[in-house]
């Protein structure tokens, strides 16, 4: 296969960045998209040029590290597929392919196709956990969970935190990511005590990171490699609303050990 690539090149956070074009004529259909990128980088290296920086790790579609907007779509043209699980047979011989990083002001570009997604970690820090220490715990079967609820929680927990939802959203909203984590814990009995607090603090952190508002475009669900449903956004909105109606009493300060 012969392909023409247009790739976003940006040397640092402060660099303005630009598209650069490359041609590859030794691409085969069985190559994964990232193996095609490896081939490009091998070529650039041997030619004495700088290879394209991109994030990747497991290459099995689960670590959430890979992140490319391919021909305008987060993770490319195949639905429910991460960039690393995309294969060159999904493209035609002679194809022109445009590759860009995630575009969102809350995800600044670090270099080329690598972006800074630490805002996601900070949203989790705001409440995406069950407060807990390590040590003896009750037997899990002492708290039975209806399988349908456990499965729905797992549907939400399947989120790999790649950020495609943000890249796909015209507003750069992180509601799908935030709602998936809040719903995963909010559905389970273990997550009940902090449920409403969690909804409120995660949403407020999300807003302070500069993510846009959700306007129900549903592009996030369409481009999510794990097919996370926007129904979770509804759940989060509902919990957030309930939390906002009650003046929260934060007892954390009183409860600290003296």
């Amino acid at each position, binding site marked *: 296969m012969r392909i023409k690539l247009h790739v976003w090149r940006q040397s640092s956070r402060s660099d303005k960045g630009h598209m650069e074009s490359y041609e590859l004529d030794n691409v085969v259909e069985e190559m994964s998209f990232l193996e095609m990128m490896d081939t490009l980088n091998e070529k650039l290296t041997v030619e004495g040029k700088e290879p394209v920086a991109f994030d990747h790790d497991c290459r099995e579609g689960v670590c959430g*590290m890979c992140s490319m907007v391919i021909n305008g779509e987060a993770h490319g043209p195949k639905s429910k597929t991460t960039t690393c699980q995309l294969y060159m047979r999904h493209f035609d011989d002679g194809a022109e392919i445009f590759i860009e990083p995630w575009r969102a002001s809350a995800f600044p570009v670090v270099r080329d196709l690598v972006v800074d997604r630490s805002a996601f970690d900070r949203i*989790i820090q705001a409440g995406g956990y069950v407060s807990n220490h390590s040590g003896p715990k009750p037997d*899990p079967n002492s708290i039975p969970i209806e399988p349908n609820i456990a499965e729905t929680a797992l549907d939400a927990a399947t989120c790999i935190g790649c950020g495609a939802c943000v890249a796909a959203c015209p507003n750069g909203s992180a509601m799908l990511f935030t709602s998936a984590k809040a719903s995963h814990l909010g559905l389970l009995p273990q997550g009940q005590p902090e449920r409403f607090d969690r909804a409120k603090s995660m949403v407020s952190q999300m807003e302070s990171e500069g993510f846009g508002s959700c306007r129900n475009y549903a592009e996030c669900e369409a481009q999510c490699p794990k097919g996370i449903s926007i129904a979770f956004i509804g759940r989060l909105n509902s919990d957030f609303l309930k939390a906002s109606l009650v003046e929260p009493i934060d007892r954390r300060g009183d409860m600290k050990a003296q």
Partner: protein
Amino acid sequence: MLTLDPKIPVSPIEDAWTFHKNNNLRLVGPKNRPKYKVIVVGSGLAGASAAASMGAMGYNVECFCFQDSPRRAHSIAAQGGINASKNYRNDGDSTWRLFYDTQKGGDYRAREKNVYRLAELSTSIIDQAVSQGVPFAREYGGKLANRSFGGVLVERTFYCRGETGQQLLLGAYSALEEQIAAKKVKMHTRHEMLDLVVVDGRSRGIVVRNLETGEITSHAADAVVLATGGYGNVFYLSTNAKGCNVTANFRAYRKGAGFANPCFTQIHPTSIPASGDYQSKLTLMSESLRNDGRIWVPRDADEKRAPKDIPEKDRYYYLEERYPRFGNLVPRDVAARNAKDVCDQGLGVGPTGYGVYLDFAAAIEEKGIDAVKSKYANLFEMYQRITDDDPVETPMRIYPAVHYTMGGLWVDYNLMTNVPGLYAIGESNFADHGANRLGASSLMQCLADGYFIIPVTIGDYLSRHESGDITTDHPAFKETETAVRERVNKLMAVKGTRSAQSFHRELGKIMWEHCGISRNKESLEEGLRKIPALREEFWRDLKLPGDPAELNQSLEHAGRVLDFLDFGELMCRDALLRDESCGCHFREEHQTPEGEAERNDEDYAFVSVFEYKGEGTEPELNKEPLSFDALPLAARNYKT
């Protein structure tokens, strides 16, 4: 000579861990814990659980990972499940039974009391994970479900669909993020440890490179915990994530930590084969497929017909012919060795000739297409996504792949290496799996180490030392930093013609050929000649583009490849010295008439611990003898 005191508690195995905690371990009081700084390198299941647990106890923890977020560590890719001897199925499971299965699976090359403790802690891990909100599969009544797994006679594996590793890691990650929010843990993402700092024989900190800015900095601590995973990527192609590397462990080894059993590598028989030289990694297919698939290759090396057009008489069902009693269900290592053997004879299939067919046609004819499809739906889908072949229409192609490394840094019962203050947990130590790891045991070991063992044992060491008595002003930090910088500059200065990637690929081929599925003296010796030659070429012809003071993925890779080159040699040396077969280490000279590994307990019932003796000098082999008091030695036999 290394001082290797395994510190195994002198107490019957059933209460050794409790006895040890009560009688041998000192504690640090809550008021003093914040004064002690602990560095954790790695944020997978072991690293994240350790950092979160110690942070919650009050220690001042700093955690480092090379990915952009701690949630991305390779633990996330584990599919199958996690073992725990809960005995929910009432099928005779117990701590003892899990201990027995693990020790037998490891072919009796692990320390008994470590393995027993792992089994003992297994149930608490499930409790801990559920309390974090890990959504394990449930039955209709809302109780936890179990599945069965290879090598055992009970159902004790807990799972979340095919993403158990992801869910357990997200649990540990969320606990870690809680502690980061509470300012008990400071997280450094996109940082790679490039060296260990040892002062007066004690581990006192690390030198890291900020992968975004290229800045090289030092970090001092009262103790350092390595949770840096396995080194399967020495083979270039493996099921590991691309970033997995041996650098942190190998740097620690060069600073005096013993490296134990480096040659013990688990090779999984059913991965999707490489399709060409551009292949960057291998993806595993569940072994359960062998229950319904028949494995074969064409009898004629020049066969050109499509698989379904090849008549029965021209098909070589090599496992069924060679092992009539077990057929396609021979143990992992036997299946893997035979696949390589037929491909080496030129009978392999697929574009590279390194693949064998796994054919479901007979099962579909016998059980019906729907029954087969429903059993393996997600696996068939995954296979088709990668290869574009429908396993219902045409046989799958499979080939063995490097999957897990049992070797690692030598640690005592407290998980401390022989360098005081340096700990190794999870896949980065050697402790629990002997010469072969049982399925669904890796997640269990990482979490036992991180949630329950290291938080207690580290206090014993810390309580015996002053807190905060070192800063990065100490000359040892400056010296180590300078050495790290010099190494980076030296790599940049080669200015040859070949990429780091091309050297890594070539090393991988050497390792696979000479230190792979089966090994023999001549071949290992040849490997030991080829690797130094490749290393010389690396130093002569490496080409690194870009600037070391920026994000430079080629430079990151080159440093890892360089350590893999040195480490590959150590693996070959270990494999050569261990002149027996055990578990995954198959020396062709030592096999039973059925082709199974033949152990030599008389001469090799020990842990091989290598000691670094300086550049260009052969490492010294130290031995930790193993004793088998609770469980007498027996031949590993899955046939009767």
